[in-house]
């Protein structure tokens, strides 16, 4: 038996190692994705002021801190029984849309995409942003860099910082958007929409018109029939910021749609001795190992999964691209893992359109950015869609809560169901829970 090792995995946030065991005839006997370390968030949030959770949990991932910040902030809203003001919700979703534009752009052009753009047989040294610049030309590469820069500016202007934002507070946000900034955001959003359309065209030209790529996308090696999960709005359209969690089975039929507080009825974790990460699965189907199919509780929560789990997109241009993808790939659901890149670009377009809608909403510059919590805090749950997965935060609080006090209102314990990385289990499913529990006394 031969052994192949990929260590470390590159162009990815998070550490990982892949070991592949080959039979004597060269076929694959087993593959292991190992995550080599414990961070310890599950335990070390204990005793910390619960108001700090939107600052602590983003340190799980510096590529998607906005998602952790938002999930923890929403959990605080719920914990304090305080609905954010309408303006505050829109400001949060505006930042979140700009975040999706940057994150999906980063993924497509810098992290995952270079394998596609440079081609399946490109040398390792060329599979990075510099190789991409050489291949697509400085015009498009300049737009990539500019899109990231402009949307990072939005995140900084609205959220306070580009990495690890600070603006989320229970019941609202910490800062208004000025009319001057709104106008600037509106102009950026218009450019984002055009950039997203251009990116879909690039994908069409480079990938879909190349038979070798298309054969790879639809090949058995990259196809798994699993359950799919994603947040949906009240019309079952994809939503990144709010809604219910909808799960569809491998045939595309709704399996369950649940509210945040019900998540523990539906999700559990499996432990394998060879990796520090744990493997979430659908509790009511059960863990049957690393296999796909209707009897296996393995599910995916990715851009493609969100599109599979929803009935469509909430904006017109993204909806047209959604229809095009499914008609090209033979209807819903799509089980080809590599089509995730296509789905990501459709989401990029949706995020850009939604950003533009919010930037043109006159209420976005309103003065009512926060409802101050006054009720007694109990337990809170918050869910958002992270670009690569679905986050679910559940929080409880102990002690006498004083909102800005540091000596009371501390989290008493934390359960965080960590993510499985993009190559774990059949392919690409991940989900995060963060839970701050009441003490046992």
């Amino acid at each position, binding site marked *: 038996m031969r052994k192949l090792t990929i260590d470390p995995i*590159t162009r990815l946030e998070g550490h990982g190692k892949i070991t592949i065991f080959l039979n004597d005839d060269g076929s694959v006997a087993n593959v292991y994705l190992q995550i080599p370390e*414990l961070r310890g968030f599950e335990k070390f949030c204990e005793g*910390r002021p619960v108001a700090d959770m939107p600052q602590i949990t983003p340190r799980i991932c510096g590529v998607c801190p906005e998602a952790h910040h938002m999930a923890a902030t929403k959990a605080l809203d719920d914990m304090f029984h305080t609905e954010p003001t309408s303006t505050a919700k829109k400001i949060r979703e505006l930042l979140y849309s700009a975040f999706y534009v940057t994150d999906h752009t980063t993924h497509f052009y810098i992290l995952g995409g270079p394998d596609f753009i440079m081609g399946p047989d490109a040398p390792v040294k060329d599979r990075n942003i510099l190789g991409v610049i050489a291949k697509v030309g400085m015009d498009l590469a300049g737009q990539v860099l500019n899109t990231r820069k402009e949307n*990072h500016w939005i995140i900084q202007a609205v959220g*306070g910082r580009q*990495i690890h934002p600070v603006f989320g507070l229970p019941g609202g946000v910490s800062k208004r958007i000025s009319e001057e900034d709104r106008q600037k955001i509106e102009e950026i959003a218009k450019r984002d929409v055009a950039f997203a359309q251009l990116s879909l065209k690039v994908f069409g030209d480079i990938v879909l018109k190349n038979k070798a790529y298309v054969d790879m996308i639809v090949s058995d090696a990259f196809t798994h029939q699993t359950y799919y999960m994603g947040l949906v709005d009240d019309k079952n359209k994809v939503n990144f910021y709010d809604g219910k969690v909808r799960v569809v089975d491998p045939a595309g039929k709704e399996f369950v749609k649940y509210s945040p507080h019900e998540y523990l009825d539906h999700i559990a974790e499996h432990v394998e*001795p060879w990796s520090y990460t744990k493997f979430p699965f659908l509790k009511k189907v059960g863990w049957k190992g690393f296999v796909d199919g209707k009897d296996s509780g393995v599910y995916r929560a990715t851009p493609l999964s969100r599109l599979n789990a929803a009935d469509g997109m909430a904006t017109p241009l993204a909806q047209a691209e959604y229809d095009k993808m499914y008609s090209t790939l033979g209807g819903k659901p799509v089980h080809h893992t590599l089509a995730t890149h296509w789905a990501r670009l459709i989401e990029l377009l949706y995020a850009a359109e939604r950003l533009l809608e919010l930037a043109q909403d006159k209420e976005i510059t309103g003065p009512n950015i926060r409802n101050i919590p006054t009720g007694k805090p109990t337990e809170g749950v918050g869910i958002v869609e992270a670009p690569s997965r679905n986050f679910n935060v559940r929080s409880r609080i102990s002690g006498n809560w004083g*909102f800005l006090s540091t000596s009371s209102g501390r989290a008493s314990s934390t359960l965080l169901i*960590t993510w499985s990385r993009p190559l774990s289990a059949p392919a690409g499913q991940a989900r995060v829970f963060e839970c701050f529990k009441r003490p046992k006394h």
Partner: protein
Amino acid sequence: MKPRVAFFDFTGCEGCQLEVLNFNLEIVDLIGAIDIVEFREASSDHSDDYDIAFIEGSQTTDRDVERVQKIREKAKILVALGACSCTGGVNALKNRFSMEENLKVVYGDSAKLYSTIPTRPTSAYVKVDVHLHGCPPNRNEVISLVKCLLSGKKFEQCHNPVCVECKLAENICAFERGEFCLGPITRGGCNAVCVTGGRKCWGCRALVDEPNVNSEKEILKKYGLTMDDMMLQFKLFNGALEVSK
């Protein structure tokens, strides 16, 4: 010959590497002056030949310790990049518990199959030539450091507390808004972005040189806060400070 620069990630969120990636157009100029030979988050290329090593993240496994020591042997200059490498960062919060407790919460009955060691900053294991504080560090500081290294100049940390930059930004004092701010004792260089964003300083850039202890005591007294309150806040990013240098 251009200096060969390598970025190595240990335990952390990798936001520091992303901050460097976010140089955007500036990075195109930067790579004209240096050769980036290792940058796992953005490139699959790999090299063991480098002059300057940036260490991101803290050391939390035995393997990490061996790895950082090997990097030190090869690098002419070693830079601790960001809070996790400089002071342990949020990872050090786990040091308040036994390692067995940490593992048990996560893995339950299977905890005995896993291991972890207390979080330490990089300086606990190897000599660090430059500390770039912050979670993440300010990108202008990173660029400034690279320029200093290229021109042979000494890199100067910011020696003012965050309060100085906060005043220049004309912010209302966060204490006046009811927040517990660590700006008076935290090293500046961040332009007080968190306070400008409507919040407070969480102390991610570690203790300023020669903090004004008496002034801090007066502030605590004025707002009815205690030293214990302050330490609780300060340890969010600086839990392993006692073993860092």
